C-alpha cells in the first residue's frame, strides 16, 4: 500500500519541485498596500462555483472551504490547488501585463475511523508580491534607479479534526498556527561604475495562533447549510530595519490583530443534478497597527458568492459525464483606496473536473474572469483571468500490523 501512495504522490512531488522555476510576479497590485491579497481557502471546485460551495459536501478533497466536509473522507487524501493568473493593470495612461502564480492550499486528510478525520496542511491567508522600478533623474549625475521589492505572505498551518456526529451533522475544529512575513526592500542604484547601491529594508515577522470551528448540516437530501467561525489572530510582529549603513539598523516589536470572521452558506439541489450554492463571509476591520498610512482606509471585508453546478452522471455523452460549474463572487477588500472607496473583486467563474485516471481522486479546473478595483473608484483596475488546478489523490488507509 505504501508503494501505491508514493506512486500516486509522484506527480504532486514533481509539481512542487518545479514551483521555484515559475515566473512568479505580482499578486494583485492592490496587495502592496496592506497584508496582501486575501486568499480564500477551497478546492478548485469551490473556485469554479465562485467561492460559493461552502455548504456543499465534497468527499473528494481535503482542501475544503468548510473543514467539516472532511468528515466524509474515507481514504487518506492529499489535495492541493494551484493558481495561475494573467492580468492587465491600468492606471491613468499606464498599462502593465502581469502574471501570477500561487499555491493557495495543500492539505492531507487522515481518516482514523469512519466519520473522524484529522487534517494538516498549509493555507495561504494573504499574499503580496511586487517588484517596482522607477528612474529618478539626478541633476548633473547619472540616472538613479529606484527598486522596490515587496513580499508578503501570511499563512496558516491548520491542525484540524472533522467529525460526523450524525448522518446529517458534521463539525470540525482546527487549531491554526499562524505565521508569515512582510518584507519591503528599497534599493537605489545606478548603472554606472564606482556607484554602490543603497538599500533600506524592513522585515516584519508575524507569529500567532487561532481557532476555527465549522459545521455542516444536511437538513434535507437536497439542502445543506454550513456555518463557521474563526477566532481573531493576535500576531506578535517582530520588525527589523536594516540599512546599507549598519549603524542605522534597529528592531522593534508590536502587536497586530486580525479580527475574528464568520461565514454561512447553503446548497440547494433543484434536481439530482442541478445544485445552487451560496456563501457569505465577513471579517471586521483590523486596526491599522503597523500601517499608519492606512488609518481610515481599512474597513470590513465581505464576500458574497453564488454558484450553480450540474453534476456528472455515469452514462451519456462526454459532457454528461463531467460536471459543469458556474459562479460569481464579489469580495470587498479590507483596503479602501482612496479613503471611503473600497477595493472590490468581482469575478465570474466556470469550470469542470474529472476523476483521476488510475484510481480514487479528482482533477478540477476553474477558470475565473474578473476585475479588481476600478479606474473610476480607485484610479487603478486589474482585469484578471485565472486558471486554478486542483488535484486530489486518495488511497485506502489502514495501519499496518507487524507480524511477530
Amino acid at each position, binding site marked *: 500500500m505504501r508503494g501505491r501512495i508514493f506512486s500516486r504522490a509522484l*506527480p504532486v512531488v*514533481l*509539481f512542487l519541485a*518545479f514551483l521555484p*522555476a515559475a*515566473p512568479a*510576479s*505580482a499578486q494583485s*497590485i492592490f496587495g*502592496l*498596500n496592506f497584508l496582501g491579497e486575501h486568499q480564500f481557502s477551497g478546492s478548485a471546485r469551490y473556485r469554479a462555483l465562485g467561492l460559493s460551495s461552502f455548504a456543499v459536501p465534497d468527499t473528494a478533497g481535503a482542501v475544503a472551504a468548510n473543514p467539516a466536509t472532511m468528515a466524509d473522507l474515507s481514504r487518506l487524501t492529499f489535495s492541493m490547488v*494551484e493558481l*495561475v493568473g*494573467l492580468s492587465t*493593470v*491600468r*492606471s491613468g495612461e*499606464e*498599462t*502593465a*501585463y*502581469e502574471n501570477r*502564480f500561487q499555491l493557495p492550499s495543500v492539505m492531507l486528510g487522515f481518516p482514523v475511523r469512519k466519520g473522524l478525520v484529522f487534517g494538516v496542511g498549509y493555507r495561504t491567508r494573504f499574499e503580496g508580491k*511586487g*517588484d*517596482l*522600478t522607477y528612474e*529618478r533623474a*539626478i*541633476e*548633473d*549625475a*547619472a540616472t*538613479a534607479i*529606484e527598486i*522596490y521589492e515587496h513580499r508578503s505572505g501570511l499563512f496558516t498551518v491548520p491542525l484540524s479534526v472533522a467529525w460526523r456526529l450524525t448522518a446529517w451533522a458534521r463539525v470540525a475544529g482546527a487549531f491554526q498556527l499562524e505565521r508569515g512575513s512582510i518584507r*519591503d526592500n*528599497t534599493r*537605489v*542604484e545606478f548603472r*554606472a561604475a*564606482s*556607484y*554602490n547601491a*543603497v538599500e*533600506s529594508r*524592513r522585515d516584519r515577522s508575524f507569529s500567532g495562533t487561532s481557532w476555527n470551528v465549522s459545521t455542516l448540516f444536511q437538513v434535507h437530501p437536497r439542502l445543506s447549510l454550513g456555518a463557521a467561525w474563526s477566532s481573531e489572530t493576535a500576531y506578535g510582529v517582530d520588525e527589523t530595519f536594516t*540599512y*546599507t*549603513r549598519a549603524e*542605522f539598523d534597529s528592531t522593534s516589536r508590536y502587536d497586530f490583530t486580525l479580527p475574528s470572521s464568520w461565514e454561512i452558506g447553503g446548497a440547494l439541489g433543484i434536481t439530482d443534478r442541478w445544485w445552487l450554492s451560496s456563501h457569505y463571509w465577513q471579517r471586521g476591520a483590523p486596526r491599522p497597527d503597523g500601517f*499608519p*498610512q*492606512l488609518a481610515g482606509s481599512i474597513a470590513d471585508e465581505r464576500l458574497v458568492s453564488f454558484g450553480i453546478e450540474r453534476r456528472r452522471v455515469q452514462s451519456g455523452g462526454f459532457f454528461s459525464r463531467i460536471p459543469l460549474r458556474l459562479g460569481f463572487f464579489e469580495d470587498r477588500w479590507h483596503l479602501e*483606496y482612496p479613503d471611503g472607496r473600497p477595493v472590490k473583486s468581482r469575478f465570474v467563474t466556470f469550470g469542470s473536473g474529472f476523476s*483521476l*485516471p*488510475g484510481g480514487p481522486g479528482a482533477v478540477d479546473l476553474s477558470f475565473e474572469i474578473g476585475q479588481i478595483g476600478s479606474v473610476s473608484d480607485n484610479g*487603478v483596475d486589474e482585469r484578471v483571468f485565472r486558471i486554478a*488546478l486542483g488535484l486530489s489523490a486518495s488511497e485506502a488507509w489502514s495501519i499496518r500490523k507487524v507480524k511477530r
Partner: protein
Amino acid sequence: MKSKYWIIPAFLAFVLSCSSDPEGPVSARFIDDGTYGIKSGETRRVVIPVNAMTVSVPLGVGTSPFLNLGRQKGIEYRAILLKFDFTPASGDEGKAVSSAVLHLPVQVESPENLKMLVTFNELLSSFSDADSITAIPSYDPRPIADSLGRTVDTLSFKSTDFDIDTTVVNGWISGRRPHNGIAILWAAVPDSASSVEMNAHEYGSDPPAVRVNFTDGSSAAFGSIDDYTVVRLERSGLDCVGGIARRISCSFDPAGIPARAIVHASFLVLRMRGDQGLGATVGEQLILGYSSLFTYYLYAPDSADTLSTDFRKGTGVARNSFDPAVSATIKLPIRAYVTDILAKARVNTGLVLQSDRELTRIQRASFVADGAEAPYIEIIYSLPADFGGSR
C-alpha cells in the same frame, strides 16, 4: 496510471510561458501618495570645493633604469649626474692612462637626428642614488675638456663616446683628484620637445662608463655606481609628479551633508591639462615597455599638516591609472573615505594624490587649479527610506 502525467508538463509549460511587464508605472501612485507606506530616501548630488595645493616631498628618485636630458611636456631634464668606481683592478694599480673615453649608452633620441650640446663638469660634492636632488649640485664651472681641448660636445644616438682629458682621469684613478661625480649639463637650452635617453646602471647592462687605455697597451672600464637625472618643472602649478615627488594635497569640508546620508559614490574631480602631462618618455615606452598611463595613489594622510612626516603616509583610498596627456576631467573614487568621515569613523585629514611610481619614474599629471574647472568633491547620496508612511 501513466495517462494522468500529461497534466504536469502541460501546466508547467503554461506557467513558464508567462512573463510580466515592469510594474513601476502602474503602481507609482501608491508610492507617490504614501499608500504603499514606503518611500525611497531622496537622492542628491552635492559638490564641495576643494582647497588643493602642490606639496614637494623630498624622496630619493635615483633608481630609474634610464637617464634623460632635455625637455618634455614642461619638464626640464637639466642634468645627468654620474659617479664612477675608479678602483683599479688587480694588476692595474699604478698604471698611467694614455687615453680615456666617457661612454654614454644613448638608447633613444627625440626627435630623430637630435644633436644636443652638452658639457661635462666635475661635481664639487658627492651624491648617491638614494638622495633627493631637485637642483643641480654645485659643480666646477670649467667643463672637462677632451684631448683636443674642446669642452662642448654633441650628444646623440650616433655620438655616445667622448674623449676626456687623461690628466683628469689619471687623477681620479690614482686618487690624487677627488671624484665626486660629473654632471652632464646643457650647453644650450634645447628645444621644448627634445631629449636623449640613456641607460642608467640600474638598466642592467651597458652602463655609463669611463673606458681607458693604459700606456702599457692594456685597457679597463669603470662603470657608473650612482647616476641620477636632475629635473625641474618649467612652470609650477597643480602638479602631481613622480621622480621629483610633487604631491597634491586636497582638503575639503563635508559640512552640510546630512548625518544619515548613505553614499552611492564620491569622487575627487580634477580637470587635467593634457599638454603638461607625461606618462612615459619615448625610451621608457619603446625600450622598457612602460605604459604611458599615469598610475596614481590616493591616500588619506595621517596628518593634515603638510610639514609633518605623517603627511607623507596614511590610509590608501584609491589606486588606478589614467592618461595624463589627454585634457579631460577625471574622477577619482573616494566613496569609502567619505562614508567613513560621515560616520565619524575617521578624521577628515584630506586627501593626497601622488604618483604610484614616485621613486622610479618621472611622470607628470597637471591639473587646473582654479576657476570653473578647479578641483572639487562630488558626492551622490541617498537618505534612508522612509518606512513611516504618510498620506
